[in-house]
C-alpha cells in the first residue's frame, strides 16, 4: 500500500505496529475517521444499489433487473425500508458526523487526539457490528425488514403481519447498536471540543464545522433516549409477547410514532448541521471571505436545535392525533423556517464582496446551498397542516426530503471530501474529474426528483411496487416521469465510478498537497498532510478567529489562526 493512504505512517515510533493494530485496532482519531469514512462509502454503495433495484421495478414493472433479478412485492418493501435506514444511519451519520467529526475536531481545535481514544475505538467497533447486523438481516429467512424505515407497529411488531420475523428484530438490534456507537462518539466530540482546545481558542474562534458537529451530537444525545426506550418496547413486543403497541391488549400503536418522531425530527438536524458547517468552511475558503455574522450562524444553529424538539408531530397530522394538536405543530414547524432562512441568507451574504474561485469543493458547497433551498421551501407545504392532508405520504414528501438529505448526505459530503482530501491523504484530487463528477451528479439529481414532486401532486402514494393496480396512476404520462427519474438515477450512479476512480487514484498518484494547498486559515492546515500521529510536533496556539480572509491589516489575503500578530 502506498504511503499516502495512511495518515499515521510517517510517524517513526509507530512503524513496529502490525497491520491489525494500525488499521483495525487504532485509537488514532484520524484512523477511526477513515474507518468510518470507508465503511460509510461501502454502505452507500449498498444503499445506492437498493435504489437502483426498486427504481428499475418502478420504471419497468416486473422486469428482470440486471444484477438483481425480479423484484417481488415483499422484496420491494424490504428494499425501500433498508435503503432509507442504511442511507440515514449507515451513510449520512457515519460520514458526516463520525468521519468528519473524528478527523476534523482534534485537527481544527489544535489537540493531539480525542479525550477518550478507547471510547472512540469502541464506538467504531460497535458501529461496524451494527453494519454487519443490518446487512445480515437482509439474508435471513423471510428476508429483511419491510415495514418502512419508520417501523410503525403493529406491522413492525407482529410477525404474522410483517412476515419478516427475524428481519424485523435484527433491524431493530442493528439500529439500537448504531445508536450506542454514536452516543459514544458524541460524548467524545462534545468533551473534546469543550476541554481540549488550543490555548487562546475561545468559543467564537471555533470553526463553524466543529460547532455544528458538536451541536448535532448534543441533539442526538438528547433525542435518542426516548427512541431507545421505544425500540426496546418494540423488541419486546416482537419477541417476548408484551403489548406496548398492541391495541387488543391495552397498548397504543401511536405511542411508537411519538417516540420515533421525537427522535426522528431532530435526527434530520443531526445530519444537516455538519453539512451546513462544512459548507460554511468551504465557502469562506474559496470566496476568500470572513463568514458573515459568525455569531448569528451559531445562534441560528442553537435555535434550530431547540425548535427541532417541538415539531415532531407534523409527521403525524393525519395519523389520528387530536386534530387540535395540529395547530400547535403547524406553528412550530413554520417557525423553524426562520433560523434556517437566516442561515441561508448569511451564506449568501458571505459571497458578497468575495473573490470566488469555483474549485470542486466550492462547486459542491454552492450546490448545497442552491439545492437545499428547494428542500427547505418544499417543507413549508408539508408543515402547513391543511396542505399536508393531501400531500402526506405522497411522492411530494419523498421528493422534499430527498431534496434535504441528498444535499446533506451526498453534496455536503462531497464538498467535505473534496476540501479535506489533501489533508487526509497528502495529495490533491484531480480537478477535471472532480468537475465532471460534480455535474454528472448534481444535474441527474434534479432530473430524478423534480419528476417525483409532480408525481406526488398527481396523487402518487409511497411504497407501492407497481402502480398498474391504480388506474389513475397507471397512465402513460406518469409512467414516463417514472422512467425519466430512473434513467437519471442510472446516470448518477454511473457517475460515482468517476468519483471512486478519482478518489483512489489520487490517493496514490495525486499531486503532493503540501501543508496548506487552499491557503486556508484554520489549524488543520498548519500541520503536515497527512498529519502525523499526535497531529503536531508542537501543539499550536490560537490568536484569532477562524475566517480571517482579506483582513486590511495584512498583506496576504489570509491570516492563519495560529500566527502571532
Amino acid at each position, binding site marked *: 500500500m502506498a504511503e499516502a493512504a495512511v495518515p499515521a505512517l510517517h510517524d517513526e515510533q509507530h512503524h513496529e505496529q502490525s497491520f491489525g493494530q494500525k488499521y483495525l485496532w487504532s485509537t488514532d482519531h484520524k484512523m477511526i475517521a477513515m474507518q468510518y469514512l470507508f465503511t460509510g462509502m461501502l454502505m452507500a454503495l449498498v444503499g445506492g444499489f437498493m435504489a437502483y433495484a426498486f427504481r428499475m421495478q418502478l420504471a419497468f414493472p416486473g422486469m428482470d433487473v440486471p444484477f438483481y433479478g425480479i423484484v417481488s412485492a415483499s422484496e420491494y418493501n424490504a428494499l425501500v425500508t433498508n435503503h432509507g435506514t442504511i442511507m440515514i444511519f449507515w451513510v449520512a451519520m457515519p460520514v458526516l458526523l463520525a468521519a468528519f467529526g473524528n478527523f476534523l475536531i482534534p485537527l481544527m481545535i489544535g489537540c493531539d487526539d480525542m479525550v477518550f481514544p478507547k471510547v472512540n475505538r469502541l464506538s467504531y467497533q460497535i458501529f461496524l457490528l451494527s453494519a454487519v447486523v443490518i446487512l445480515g438481516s437482509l439474508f435471513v429467512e423471510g428476508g429483511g425488514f419491510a415495514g418502512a424505515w419508520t417501523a410503525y407497529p403493529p406491522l413492525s411488531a407482529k410477525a404474522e*403481519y410483517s412476515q419478516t420475523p427475524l428481519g424485523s428484530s435484527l433491524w431493530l438490534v442493528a439500529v439500537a447498536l448504531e445508536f450506542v456507537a454514536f452516543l459514544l462518539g458524541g460524548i467524545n466530540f462534545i468533551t473534546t471540543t469543550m476541554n481540549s482546545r488550543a490555548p487562546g481558542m475561545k468559543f467564537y474562534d471555533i470553526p463553524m464545522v466543529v460547532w455544528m458537529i458538536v451541536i448535532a451530537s448534543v441533539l442526538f444525545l438528547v433525542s435518542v433516549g426516548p427512541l431507545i426506550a421505544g425500540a426496546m418496547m418494540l423488541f419486546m413486543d416482537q419477541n417476548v409477547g408484551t403489548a406496548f403497541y398492541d391495541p387488543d391488549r391495552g397498548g397504543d400503536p401511536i405511542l411508537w410514532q411519538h417516540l420515533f418522531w421525537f427522535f426522528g425530527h431532530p435526527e434530520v438536524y443531526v445530519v444537516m448541521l455538519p453539512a451546513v458547517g462544512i459548507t460554511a468552511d468551504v465557502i469562506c475558503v474559496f470566496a476568500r471571505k470572513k463568514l458573515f*455574522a459568525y*455569531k448569528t450562524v451559531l445562534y441560528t444553529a442553537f435555535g434550530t436545535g431547540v425548535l427541532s424538539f417541538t415539531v415532531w408531530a407534523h409527521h403525524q397530522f*393525519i395519523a389520528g392525533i387530536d386534530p387540535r394538536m395540529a395547530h400547535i405543530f403547524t406553528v412550530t414547524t413554520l417557525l423553524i423556517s426562520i433560523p434556517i432562512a437566516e442561515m441561508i441568507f448569511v451564506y449568501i451574504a458571505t*459571497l458578497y464582496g468575495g473573490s470566488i474561485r469555483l474549485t470542486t469543493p466550492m462547486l459542491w458547497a454552492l450546490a448545497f446551498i442552491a439545492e437545499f433551498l428547494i428542500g427547505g421551501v418544499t417543507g*413549508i407545504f408539508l408543515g402547513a*397542516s391543511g396542505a399536508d392532508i393531501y400531500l402526506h405520504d405522497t411522492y411530494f414528501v419523498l421528493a422534499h426530503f430527498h431534496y434535504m438529505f441528498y444535499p446533506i448526505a451526498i453534496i455536503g459530503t462531497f464538498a467535505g471530501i473534496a476540501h479535506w482530501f489533501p489533508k487526509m491523504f497528502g495529495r490533491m484530487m484531480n480537478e477535471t474529474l472532480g468537475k465532471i463528477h460534480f455535474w454528472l451528479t448534481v444535474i441527474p439529481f434534479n432530473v430524478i426528483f423534480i419528476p417525483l414532486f409532480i408525481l406526488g401532486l398527481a*396523487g402518487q402514494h409511497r411504497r407501492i411496487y407497481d402502480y398498474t393496480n391504480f388506474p*389513475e396512476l397507471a397512465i402513460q404520462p406518469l409512467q414516463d416521469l417514472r422512467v425519466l427519474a430512473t434513467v437519471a438515477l442510472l446516470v448518477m450512479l454511473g457517475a460515482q465510478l468517476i468519483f471512486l476512480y478519482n478518489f483512489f487514484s489520487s490517493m496514490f498518484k495525486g499531486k503532493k498537497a503540501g501543508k496548506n494547498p487552499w491557503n486556508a486559515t484554520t489549524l488543520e492546515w498548519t500541520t503536515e498532510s497527512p498529519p502525523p500521529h499526535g497531529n503536531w510536533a508542537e501543539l499550536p496556539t490560537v490568536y484569532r478567529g477562524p475566517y480571517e480572509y482579506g483582513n486590511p491589516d495584512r498583506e496576504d489575503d489570509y491570516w492563519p489562526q495560529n500566527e502571532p500578530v
Partner: protein
Amino acid sequence: MIESYVPAVSTYASSIDNLFTLIFGLVGFWLILSEVVFFGLIWKFRAKDGVKTRYITGEEKHQKRWITWPHLLVLVCDVFIIVGAVRVWYDVKQNLPPAQETVRVIGQQWAWTFEHPGLDGKLGTADDIAKVNELHVKVDTLYHYKLEALDVLHSFSVPVFRLKQDAIPGRTITGWFEATQTGEYGIQCAEICGIGHGLMGARIFIESPEAHAAWLAKESPLTLTAMDTPAVED
C-alpha cells in the same frame, strides 16, 4: 395547481388546492429571489486578478439589516401560511358538520370493506350493504365516515376529495366528506401495511340520488362480497 393533475370532487378540495397555491406563490417568490441573488453574487464576485476581497464581519447593524429585513418578511409570509393552514385544517379535520349519511370504512390486510346503510338509511342494522373495495355515495350529500382497522395501520386516502386519514386498530375515527360531482375515482391505502400494500386500491362511485337508490335496491337485502366478514357490532 393540484386540480390540473387530480380533479377536485369534494366541498373542501378547492380550499386545500388554494392553500397549496398560496404557499406555492409565497415560497416560490422567496426561492426565485434567493437563487437569483445567489447566482448573481457568484457571477459578480468571481475571482479577478488584482481585485482583493472585502473584509466584512457582518456583525455591524448596517450590514446585518441585509439579512434582518428579508428575515422579518419571511416571518410575515409564515404568518399568512399558518393562518391559511389552520383555517383549512379546522374545516376539514376539526370541525364535524352534522351527517346526512354515514358509512363505515374498515381497512385490513389487504382490502377495504365499506359498509353502507341499507334501505332504512341506518348503519348497524341487518340490511347494511357491505362491499369490498367499492364505496358508493350520493353526490351533494354530507357523509360521515367511521374509520377502523382490523390488523395494522392503514390510511384511507381519496385523492379527488383531498382526504386522507390513518386507520388505527382499536379505534374508530370519525370524519366527513361531501362529494360535488358524480363519477368513479380511486381510493388508496396511503400507509404501508405489508406485502399487499401495493394491491390495496379501491374505487369510489359517486352517484346521483336516483342512481344510488337503484344501486341500493339492487344490493338489498344484505349481500356480502367480502372474503371474510368483518365483525359488525354497534
